[in-house]
């Protein structure tokens, strides 16, 4: 059996070596994509363009505005003179946020009647809007608390009062600065690997079928299992190389930490590659032309990407889509890769994901061998 598998492996590797374009496609685009997407994917919100309208012109209003101007979260792009200008700025998308302090703000504060500021947010990007609103609230609350503390202090001497303040201290683990890149770069690593490996495998067999060399191979004494194993081994090796390449870019360029055990990562990567290879093989057994393989790849890869937890929390999806994520190898691999790179957890935590990928690999590989046999008959 081994003697019959080896020639196929060697044949595939030779084919890859001779194909200059393929070698280029395997190295350069993944590196470029890592660099571009590693920077592009972010939900962090800095420098929100802000317009400000101060109709109160008091010391208090200026103090509050200073808190916004000094924050790196907001860039004051316009100091408006009228409500009309504010509306125009939001309409033209010059500003995403507008803060209006009405006349009487300081008066209300001093009398303790509860002052208010008006905020207008462009909701077209709801996520940015939500986060920006959060920052505005934090700044406003900070201002109010300090103001109240000041007032209390003055009164405390006179009447013996005390301010109560329960504070929440932020202790982020695994990512002390809550750097968004640390979340997305591992995701890009997994996604790129998925796309490359599925694509390679799906096209390999379909191409042989289309060109007619598959018939030739089938008249040789090789069995379907041996053929599939022979086809898979080279792509598995290529896949390992790809992972090493993109992980290196993540570690060296983006300075993502690697706190876990490389062996755990290797085990997880092996299982992931086996299951994605199986997906590619299955696609190639259902398709008879490369065009079909291409369309099917598309059909399969984009939901795998969206429904993986790459950016959008699986817990927020409707139940039906959550079920679908269970057959998505990328879902498990993202847990493994983030777990080993950032958290440093081991097999004791990751075993359910390992098991799921192993089951997926076995089921899909068996299916594709069965289907492959059928298409030959």
């Amino acid at each position: 059996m081994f003697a019959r598998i080896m020639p196929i492996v060697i044949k595939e590797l030779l084919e890859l070596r001779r194909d200059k374009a393929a070698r280029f496609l395997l190295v350069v685009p993944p590196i470029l994509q890592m660099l571009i997407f590693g920077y592009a994917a972010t939900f962090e919100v800095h420098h929100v363009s802000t317009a400000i309208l101060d109709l109160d012109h008091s010391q208090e209003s200026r103090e509050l505005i200073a808190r916004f101007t000094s924050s790196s979260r907001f860039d004051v792009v316009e100091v408006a003179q009228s409500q009309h200008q504010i509306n125009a700025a939001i309409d033209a998308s010059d500003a995403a946020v507008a803060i209006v302090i009405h006349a009487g703000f300081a008066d209300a504060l001093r009398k303790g009647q509860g002052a208010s500021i008006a905020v207008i947010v462009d909701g077209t990007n709801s996520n940015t809007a939500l986060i920006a609103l959060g920052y505005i609230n934090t700044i406003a609350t900070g201002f109010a608390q300090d103001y109240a503390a000041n007032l209390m202090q003055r009164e405390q001497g006179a009447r013996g009062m005390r301010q109560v303040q329960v504070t929440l201290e932020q202790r982020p683990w695994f990512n002390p600065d809550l750097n968004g890149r640390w979340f997305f770069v591992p995701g890009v690593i997994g996604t790129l690997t998925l796309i490359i490996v599925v694509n390679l495998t799906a096209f390999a067999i379909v191409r042989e079928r289309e060109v007619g060399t598959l018939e030739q191979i089938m008249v040789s004494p090789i069995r379907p299992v041996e053929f599939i194993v022979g086809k898979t081994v080279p792509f598995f090796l290529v896949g390992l190389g790809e992972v090493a390449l993109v992980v290196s870019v993540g570690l060296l360029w983006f300075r993502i930490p690697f706190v876990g055990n490389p062996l755990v990562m290797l085990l997880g990567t092996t299982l992931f590659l086996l299951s994605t290879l199986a997906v590619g093989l299955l696609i190639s057994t259902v398709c008879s032309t490369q065009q079909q393989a291409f369309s099917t790849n598309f059909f399969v890869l984009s939901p795998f990407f969206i429904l993986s937890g790459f950016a959008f929390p699986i817990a927020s999806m409707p139940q039906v889509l959550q079920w679908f994520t269970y057959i998505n190898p990328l879902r498990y691999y993202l847990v493994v890769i983030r777990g080993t790179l950032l958290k440093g957890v081991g097999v004791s935590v990751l075993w359910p994901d390992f098991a799921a990928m192993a089951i997926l690999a076995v089921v899909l590989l068996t299916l594709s061998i069965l289907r492959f046999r059928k298409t030959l008959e």
Partner: protein
Amino acid sequence: MRLRRLKAMAVKEVLQIWRDPRSLMIALLLPFTQMFMFGYGVNLYLKHIPVCTFDREGSQASQDLLKRFQASLYFAIAENVTTYPQLVAAIDRADCRLGIIVPPDFSERLNDTGTAPVQAILDGTDDNTANIAFGYAAAVVISYSNTVQMAQLDRQGRTLQVVQPLQVQSRVWFNEDLESRNFIIPGLVAVIMALVGAQLTSLTISREWERGTMELLVSTPVTAGEVMFGKLIPYLLLGWLDAAFCLIIAALWFAVPFRGTLGALFLTTTLFLAVVLSIGYLLSVLIRSQIGASQIALVVTLLPAMLLSGYVFPIDQMPTFIQKLTYLMYARYYVTIIKAIFLKGSGIAELWAPMLFLVVYALAVVLLAARAFRKRLA
């Protein structure tokens, strides 16, 4: 360019599409499935964030505080742990995203000094969730703090005006309920059309080469321009159909408010389809073998359309260099246009800038494709 020959090319292409029912099915089904899958799958709204509480004091005060987390819609108590290692394990397994630790001297400090800290342990691997969760948690703690303050003042028989906090009265424009669906779905139409469109045409020319029918085509009197437009017209019809499906699903099923005019929508969509289809055509001319064409089509469309078009990841938050790169991503113009038409009700007058970009883009790609095609024949 002769109309008769153009028509003949178009009819031939239509027949070819028609005789490959499987590809046709995929072309028509793809927008449907993608709209539903992405429409529901892409959701950044967080509710019921799993929380672990670690009450090291177990007093009336600490329980009062933790009960507020239980009552909040934003949180779901995953576990009440009693030891620190349990908390570590829960965060490691990602059973909870947030751990609230109440220190053993919580009520003592609250009574003695008036200030007491509570710790929020965050799973920082997902920074967006961590930030949002912390924001919600801070709000819970502040409201608790205010209640305690008022109770104390009450006991002293005093009025509570002094602690009245500053109120932020926010109004959200264009997407009043901050519904993430309204923000994502219009952009999604653009992304899906970018993907499906390039897909449709990218294989048409390379198929002719691989099957050897190109030689046949060249020996007829048709010109390069007639081949190109003859091939593109049927796909434009298919593209209109796909776009109409997506837009109808967006407006009727997902109930995204449509505030613009159909005329503006039709004009901009046609412009965008022209760009997308001719890009697919250019790719198919440039790359001889189908395998190369499809690989590259996948590389230059799938992830860039998702990540560089601004449909979820805001372009203005990217580094300057990447921002410049996004100008090459044709989907970004249509994302801007379609969001503006849907949510802001913008018309042609407001959208001239991205439309101009699309026109220039379409012309450039068509010219490039025509030149490349002539070169290939020579």
